[in-house]
């Protein structure tokens, strides 16, 4: 039989050719390969403000010189859509190779164990990009200022490290130095307040200046978030004595769940005289902000500061580069003043100076388990966290590097973490979403001319038990969600034999430790079930 080459048949042949060609291409070329044979990897994060994208771009540029065979793409994702973006892409298998993630992202507790790959073994090896530096030969994990403490604390599997960090974050007071000179004049005895009492005196001078000149000037720029940061620190600093008392587990630190459980068990509340005194400090500090600050956003506080209407803005060092670069006045960075034993309001409860910059590092990056180019991604992570890249990142972003042996530029030096205070942590304002809502929604009862400590405490003590309970219930649910898939992982790894044996053994201990936390929460929920 003779086959006729009709137009339809020719078209079919071309169609099938195209199909075969596509199939061959897909099957023989892995994803992420460029035309010129280079490997392409991507790094995604939500730090799209002024600074970090520039810092990362500088690091990537230098990396391309060192590794021309690997192309790194920076993917900037706005914070407001980050969680949805992350979840959708991870589920769809289209996530970036390296991904920023934080244990504080709500509703994402299952993500690391499900989608990220631990890098524990690599963390015990030296980072090859540190050759020729003082960190040559040092295990990768020890090249970070905090030894990746936070990453160990919030790891989905105790004993496993999943991430590396890029920066060090502290909370500081940023000061309009020109305005400060106008307020304090040429007073040779003036020094920047270090105690709360000295800060009160500067605030009084600022108010007097404002009245005298007719200019609108507040001591502190006001916005909901900035106020929360400041108040949270002040509450923990002032209530160090309570934290010490609550440290039942003798860890010289309290996790949020400890505050939750202690509150529900009646070991602390807002009626305590020391807590009420601390709330009095909050009243004083918020009186230094413009009225209605609770309704304002972070940008409003920055604008207020930039326009010369506020002497200080309390914020994290992540804002340092934008404030310093954009202000038309010199910006000073100062540590928060703290109450001392002589303080007229809270001095009698004073237990010691609180740590206000703990050297803890953040902006954590994880390796996507589904990445087709894990080796390239790990190589870039190593470079990203080397001394050279840490320095580049810091210089171009204005964010302090997480890496030891990097040199902090002089303007940023006051923002560097200093270990000179007690660090028990804090959970007096919030231990979860519900307690945060109750505290913040009622804050107006505490602040302003109409507010007061007593009316705030009366209201909050009605609502807080339910809120703390809801937060603990969520914590328990999250723990259960994280624990369940571990059984499958444990059995599977044991079945895989020697290569996975070590991970399986670690998982056994990690799971048992997490279960004890789960049961502690369940016991407290059971004990306090009859509470209103």
């Amino acid at each position, binding site marked *: 039989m003779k086959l006729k080459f009709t137009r339809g*048949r020719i078209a079919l042949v071309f169609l099938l050719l195209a199909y075969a060609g596509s199939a061959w291409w897909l099957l023989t070329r892995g994803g992420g390969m460029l035309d010129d044979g280079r490997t392409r990897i991507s790094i995604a994060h939500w730090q799209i403000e002024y600074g970090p994208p520039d810092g990362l771009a500088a690091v990537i540029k230098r990396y391309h010189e060192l590794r021309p065979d690997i192309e790194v793409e920076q993917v900037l994702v706005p914070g407001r859509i980050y969680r949805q973006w992350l979840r959708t892409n991870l589920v769809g298998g289209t996530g970036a190779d390296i991904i920023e993630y934080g244990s504080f992202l709500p509703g994402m507790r299952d993500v690391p164990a499900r989608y990220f790959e631990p890098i524990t073994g690599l963390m015990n090896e030296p980072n090859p990009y540190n050759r020729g530096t003082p960190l040559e030969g040092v295990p990768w994990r020890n090249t970070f200022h905090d030894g990746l403490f936070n990453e160990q604390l919030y790891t989905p599997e105790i*004993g496993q490290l999943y991430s590396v960090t890029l920066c060090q974050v502290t909370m500081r007071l940023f000061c309009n130095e020109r305005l400060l000179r106008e307020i304090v004049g040429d007073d040779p005895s003036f020094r920047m307040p270090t105690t709360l009492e000295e800060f009160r005196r500067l605030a009084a001078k600022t108010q007097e200046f404002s009245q005298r000149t007719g200019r609108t000037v507040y001591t502190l720029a006001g916005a909901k978030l900035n106020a929360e940061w400041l108040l949270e620190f002040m509450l923990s600093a002032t209530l160090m004595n309570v934290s010490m008392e609550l440290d039942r587990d003798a860890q010289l630190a309290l996790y949020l769940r400890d505050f939750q459980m202690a509150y529900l068990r009646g070991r602390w509340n807002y009626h305590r005289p020391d807590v009420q005194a601390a709330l009095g400090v909050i009243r004083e500090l918020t009186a230094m902000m413009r009225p209605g600050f609770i309704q304002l956003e972070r940008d409003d506080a920055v604008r207020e500061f930039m326009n010369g209407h506020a002497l200080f803005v309390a914020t994290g060092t992540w804002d340092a580069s934008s404030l310093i670069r954009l202000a038309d006045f010199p910006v000073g960075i100062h540590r928060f003043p703290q109450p001392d034993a002589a303080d007229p309001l809270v001095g009698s409860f004073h237990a010691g100076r609180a740590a206000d910059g703990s*050297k803890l590092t953040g902006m954590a990056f994880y390796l996507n388990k589904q990445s087709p180019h894990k080796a390239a991604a790990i190589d870039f992570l190593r470079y990203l966290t080397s001394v050279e890249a840490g320095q580049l990142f810091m210089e171009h972003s204005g964010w302090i590097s997480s890496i030891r042996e990097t040199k902090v530029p002089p303007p940023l030096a006051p923002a560097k973490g200093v270990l000179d205070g007690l660090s028990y942590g804090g959970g007096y304002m919030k231990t979860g979403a519900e307690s945060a809502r109750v505290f913040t929604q009622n804050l107006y009862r505490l602040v302003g001319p109409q507010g007061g400590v007593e009316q705030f405490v009366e209201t909050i003590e009605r609502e807080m038990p339910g809120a703390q309970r809801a937060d603990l219930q969520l914590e328990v649910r999250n723990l259960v969600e994280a624990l369940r898939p571990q059984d499958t992982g444990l059995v599977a790894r044991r*079945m895989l034999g020697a290569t996975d044996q070590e991970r399986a053994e*670690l998982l056994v201990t990690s799971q048992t430790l997490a279960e004890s936390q789960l049961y502690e929460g369940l016991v407290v929920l059971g004990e306090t079930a009859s509470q209103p």
Partner: protein
Amino acid sequence: MAGVFLPAPWIPGKCPGLIFLLPLLAVSGRVDAATTADAWRALADSRPQEALRITAGLPDSREVRLARALALSHLQPVTDDALAEAEAVFTELAAGQDETALEAHYLRARLHQIHYSRPDPVRAAELYAELAARQPASRWAQLALVKLALLQLYALENPAGPEARLVRAEELLGRLTEPALQRDLHLQIGLAGLHHGLKPERVLPHLVAADRIGDVPGIAQEDLVMQIAELSLRAGRLAQAREYFERYLRDYAVNPRCFTVRHRLVELEQLAAREGAR
């Protein structure tokens, strides 16, 4: 894995079927015959759908059935019906006499302890106890003892009261032969004692025992050193407190708690001086 390519020319009209075969063969060349190990790897990597797909193509065996039931219990969204289906397979497998039987027995207990939407700690405890009695030296029976102890420490109504709970868990310690699991149980007893408000003297021996066995993973080791130091100070065991505080400063020099530790060491020395003066 390289693709498979046909050496012969595929001329339309002579062998048009090859046009269809080419991509199919290429695909088949890329994927080696899947094995049970691939299914376990998929499960270890949290890919239960893939594990189900792989096991569907494997010849039936007890191990394959175990992997399939595990994948079923892991598949999102997890439902009680799916878990019950998995439990039925575990129950059937647990009736055997091999390693798979012990694993299935253990997993059945885990379903009741933590997976079902309404956990049943009593049923889980029964299953753990049965498993521990069945082949006491097996890895799964040993692990079952740790889980049973955890239920006794927190979840079961009987024993009641903190001291009784600790005593019951301590009885299980003697049945553990694996040092790592002994360590885990010592740690659990110590932590539960603290949670139940028992005195430092009561929990310290367990925490010290856990530390002596060693290799506590990650942050838990750091917390353990700190706890032994601080509880020893509270219990008046100053030499032990000093030893552990100093070890903490040496091993965890970058931790923000170091400042507090130095503060505590000063207090410790003042206390020691006062005691020496007495």
